């Protein structure tokens, strides 16, 4: 039976569990031991590093004595400190928390270091003059280099020894693990594997911690070297304070005080004291770094801002802090910037955060370049900034290529300069990260040496992108603010409530009307506020201080130049961490004009309302929703609205017929958007259904905010006007028709004229032709019977006929030129007829004529023209009845129903065929040949034209062989 078979599964299980417990416990113990050891080693390494630095500093001070620069006191202090630390390092020191060194190898090294240390210390122990110092240079030179080398060796050995011991412990653990594999066999191999893996992880962790420690060391060293950040360790349990000269310089102490913590507390600004105490003494169980910013006041009254970052290293069983490590930094400069930001809280917070982040040690990446191997070391933070995976090997030139092209030269030159001139650099550059992002970084670098030989470059690397961009934005915002402040005449002020100091900007002097040398105080400002408003202002301010309510007031203010204005004031209180008001920030603006404008508008609006109400026309004022604001009395009347309260109601609801008019609804909207519209003639159906014609005007009205408050409608009933217009229009139409008819008549007259001239050209020529032609025949057939005188006379006849032809043409031309005007007068028609008949009777045989003239009404007309008419008609009657045995002519009148008098002349002559009655009055129209009756054919045409021109009419009735009657009418006088 094998070993495995002899033990039961339960036993195996128990063994497995107990082995497991042993493994876990040992593992944890191991890790803690390693950590402790490393922690202690770190302290030693730290001190050793300081010792090395201090040695260098002493040596430097001594060498500088040759140039006459010597701080004997300082030198002595350094030497004393150097000796103290050396003693501590060698033999252990409770104060420093270092145990006596037990490792032989290191002890040996320390003993080798001893002579150099002693020699240097002794040579510097009793110095009293500069010459003494100069004299000590050869000895110092001799021992310094050796001391430094030895010190470096110690550090190296220390590291390797501690690494060795860690390695040993790990091997032990692995051994233990292997042993359990042997015991538990393959069945537990899985369990073992897990622990083995865990060991691997822990190992990695250890290495990482080691590297971080080294880094931290570097950072500390670098930080202090570059300045600003000073580190220290305070142990409250043992009352030990570990710090350097830098800390004294930072807090402005000339000499080392007995207890630096107490000394610092004495100079801390009273307001910040509580804060600092809290940071230092109150327990912080979470062991997170504690950040505190406070002011200190130097004896000269100078205020310095200090940012301290405190890490708790150890707490006692009561949870009370017993040991802290930390850094202090002068952030006065940043605070100044901060003050600039106070007015804009948000920016300030961002900026402060950025600042703090930058200050946080851990956030600063470090790097190192080994110039011999040309390899680079980056801390995690540097990798993070570059967005490169942590641990990726980096070459020197790759590092440079991460800078944006325009910055590469600067960095390259800085590096060259550092190598050649041993100088350091501090540049703000733009970096292109692996993912192509552009960020601002601060690159700080300096060369470091080994035995006076340049071996590499070290430096800090900070991501300052956020701060940089914030400050750029701040600049922009500042500029903007400045512009708006200048443009708006804004007075901006800050009232410090503790000191009662009042500060304000340049514009404020102008706004408040005070000279530039005016020194503002709250009291002086208050005295300028109008007495009646002072209480109000003070109360409002008090309210702002006591509550969260922001200040927003308007008050009268007597400017320094005596003018009273209205100021608007807005402000808010700035509180400290405990919520106590410390400052009040605010702005003031002269709003007098704006107020006047508002007042004017208010007045205008009320005027508008009363105007609308009192208007002797139909006027209504609506708001933007077309609700009635106010109306005139006429509006009710106009719209036939009775017994209804319409104010506040919608126009469309009150008058639904308006809502149906989509064009009107659109017009209202257009007016509401600022247009002024009107219509001179529009139809409207009133509430009672009656249709009217209206003219309307719609205009927008403006409220006190200078915005459209609604519209005003002005409506007039123009139905009567429209009626009148329509009447006028029809009259015009009628007139036009009359004119048209007159024109037509004119055309007829023209035609007659044409016919007249036409006839003249034909008929008046005919007799001339006869005269001419027959004279020719006479000359031709009877020339032998005529003597010369006879022939001459014939020639005259012929010639006269030709002349007359010519004359006719001339007369024609003349008659066409003008028309005679009618000159009307009252005419006794009976007298007219009688006188004409008297003359006519002389031509004919009086005895065979029977003429009768009845009583005739008077007429109004042109006497000459009407006489011509009468002559013509009477002679015609006598002529055409001349062949009868007895001529019977009757003259009389009839009254027509159209206000006209009809006169007639009746004869018993030949008459004419009524078929040709239309031709009767045509110019030169004849119904008889010349051989029958004499005549030119013009007579009746002339008669007709004269009667027509008098507004009358002429016509005839006839029967062949029985006689004719000619009628003519004339309008009654």
């Amino acid at each position, binding site marked *: 039976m094998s070993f495995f078979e002899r033990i039961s599964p339960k036993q195996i299980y128990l063994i497995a569990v107990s082995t497991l417990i042993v493994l876990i416990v040992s593992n944890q113990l191991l890790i803690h031991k390693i950590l402790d050891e490393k922690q202690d080693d770190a302290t030693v390494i730290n001190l050793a590093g300081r010792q090395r630095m201090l040695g260098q500093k002493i040596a430097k001070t001594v060498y500088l004595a040759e140039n006459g620069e010597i701080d004997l006191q300082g030198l002595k202090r350094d030497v004393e400190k150097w000796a103290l630390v050396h003693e501590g390092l060698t033999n252990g020191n409770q104060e420093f928390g270092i145990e006596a060194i037990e490792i032989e190898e290191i002890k040996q090294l320390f003993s080798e270091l001893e002579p150099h240390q002693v020699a240097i210390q002794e040579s510097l122990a009793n110095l009293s003059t500069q010459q003494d110092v100069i004299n000590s240079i050869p000895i110092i030179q001799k021992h310094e280099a050796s001391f430094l080398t030895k010190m470096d060796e110690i550090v190296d050995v220390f590291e390797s020894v501690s690494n060795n011991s860690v390695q040993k412990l790990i091997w032990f653990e692995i051994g233990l693990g292997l042993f359990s594999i042997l015991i538990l066999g393959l069945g537990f191999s899985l369990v073992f594997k897990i622990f083995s893996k865990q060991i691997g992880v822990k190992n990695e962790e250890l290495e990482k911690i080691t590297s971080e420690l080294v880094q931290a060391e570097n950072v500390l060293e670098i930080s202090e070297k570059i300045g600003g950040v000073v580190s220290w360790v305070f142990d409250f349990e043992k009352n030990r304070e570990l710090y350097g000269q830098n800390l004294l310089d930072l807090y402005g102490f000339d000499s080392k005080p007995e207890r630096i913590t107490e000394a610092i507390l004495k100079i801390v600004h009273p307001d910040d004291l509580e804060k600092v105490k809290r940071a230092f003494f109150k327990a912080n169980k979470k062991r997170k770094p504690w950040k505190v910013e406070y002011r200190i006041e130097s004896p000269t009254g100078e205020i310095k801002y200090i940012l301290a970052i405190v890490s708790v290293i150890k707490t006692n069983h009561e949870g009370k802090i017993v040991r802290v490590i930390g850094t202090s930094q002068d952030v006065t400069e940043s605070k100044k910037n901060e003050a600039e930001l106070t007015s804009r809280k948000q920016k300030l917070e961002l900026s402060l955060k950025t600042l703090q982040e930058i200050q946080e040690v851990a956030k600063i990446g470090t790097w190192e370049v080994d110039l011999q191997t040309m390899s680079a070391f980056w801390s995690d933070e540097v990798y993070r900034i570059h967005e490169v995976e942590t641990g990726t090997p980096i070459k020197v030139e790759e590092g440079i290529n991460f800078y944006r092209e325009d910055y590469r030269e600067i960095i390259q030159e800085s590096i060259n300069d550092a190598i050649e001139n041993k100088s350091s650099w501090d540049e703000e550059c733009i970096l292109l990260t692996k993912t192509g992002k552009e960020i601002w970084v601060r690159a700080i670098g300096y060369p470091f040496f080994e035995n006076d030989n340049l071996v590499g470059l070290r430096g800090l690397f900070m991501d300052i992108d956020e701060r940089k961009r914030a400050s750029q934005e701040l600049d922009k915002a500042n500029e903007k603010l400045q512009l708006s402040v200048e443009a708006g005449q804004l007075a901006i002020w800050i009232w410090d409530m503790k000191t009662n100091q009042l500060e304000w900007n340049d514009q404020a002097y102008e706004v408040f009307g005070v000279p530039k040398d005016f020194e503002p105080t709250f009291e002086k400002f208050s005295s300028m506020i109008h007495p009646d408003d002072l209480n109000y202002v003070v109360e409002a301010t008090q309210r702002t201080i006591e509550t969260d309510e922001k200040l927003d007031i308007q008050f009268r203010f007597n400017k320094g130049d005596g003018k009273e204005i209205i100021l608007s004031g807005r402000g808010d209180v700035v509180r400290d961490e405990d919520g106590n008001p410390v400052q009040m920030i605010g702005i003031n603006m002269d709003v007098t004009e704006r107020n006047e404008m508002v007042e004017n508008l208010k007045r205008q609006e009320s005027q508008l309302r009363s105007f609308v109400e009192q208007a002797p026309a139909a006027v209504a004022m609506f708001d933007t929703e077309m609700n009635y604001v106010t109306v005139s009395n006429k509006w009710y009347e106009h719209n036939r609205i009775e017994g209804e309260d319409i104010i506040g109601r919608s126009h469309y609801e009150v008058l639904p017929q308006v809502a149906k008019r989509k064009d009107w609804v659109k017009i209202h909207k257009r007016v509401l958007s600022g247009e002024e519209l009107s219509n001179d003639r529009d139809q409207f159906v009133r509430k009672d259904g009656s249709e009217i014609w209206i003219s309307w005007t719609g205009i927008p009205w403006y409220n006190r905010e200078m915005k459209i408050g609604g519209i005003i409608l002005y409506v007039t009933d123009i139905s009567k006007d429209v009626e009148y217009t329509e009447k006028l229009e029809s009259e015009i139409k009628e007139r036009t028709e009359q004119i048209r008819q007159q024109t037509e008549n004119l055309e007829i007259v023209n035609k007659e004229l044409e016919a007249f001239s*036409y006839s003249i*050209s034909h008929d008046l020529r005919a007799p001339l032709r*006869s005269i001419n032609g027959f004279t020719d025949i006479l000359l031709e057939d009877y020339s032998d019977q005529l003597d010369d005188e006879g022939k001459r006379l014939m020639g005259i006849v012929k010639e006269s*006929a030709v002349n007359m032809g010519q004359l006719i043409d001339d007369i024609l031309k003349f008659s066409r030129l003008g028309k005679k005007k009618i000159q009307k007068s009252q005419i006794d028609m009976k007298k007219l007829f009688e006188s004409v008949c008297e003359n006519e009777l002389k031509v004919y045989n009086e005895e065979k004529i029977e003429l009768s003239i009845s009583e005739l009404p008077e007429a109004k007309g042109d006497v000459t023209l009407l006489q011509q008419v009468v002559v013509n008609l009477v002679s015609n009657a006598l002529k055409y009845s001349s062949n009868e045995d007895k001529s019977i002519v009757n003259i009389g009148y009839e009254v027509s129903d159209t206000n006209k008098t009809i006169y007639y002349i009746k004869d018993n002559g030949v008459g004419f065929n009524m078929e040709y009655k239309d031709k009767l009055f045509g110019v030169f129209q*004849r119904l008889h*040949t010349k051989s029958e009756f004499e005549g030119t054919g013009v007579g009746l045409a002339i008669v007709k034209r004269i009667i027509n021109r008098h507004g009358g009419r002429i016509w005839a009735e006839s029967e062949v062989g029985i006689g004719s009657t000619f009628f003519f009418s004339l309008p009654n006088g």
Partner: protein
Amino acid sequence: MDINKTVEILLVEDNDNDAEMALRALKKNNISNKVTRLKDGEEALDFLFCKGDYEGRNIHNLPKVILLDLKMPKVDGLEVLKAVRSNKDTEKVPIVMLTSSREERDVVEGYKLGVNSFIVKPVEFNTFMEAVKDIGIYWVLLNELP
């Protein structure tokens, strides 16, 4: 009057003096045979369409040419022209219009209605004689009805 005698030239003229002068002119040029003179448009229409005094006349016995005065009482020359041209029996008869003046509208109207020629009766007798002579020669001696 023998209403059916052959008529070569039909002269329609209300003015006796003008008619006499025209006849004299025709006679002088030896074309006076078979000239018939009518006193006005009304008589011309009666003659041509065998009405009134000329009832029973052979309508086909047409003159070789009609010398038609434009301006006449009752029925003027243009009316006669229109009547002649709108009747199938008479439409082909040549018509020469006699006028005292060359009035635009008469000329246009005349040609529209199918007048063959115009003669302006001049005050100067000799010129008139010449014109009548030319007409007679052309229409009576040279022109044959189609």
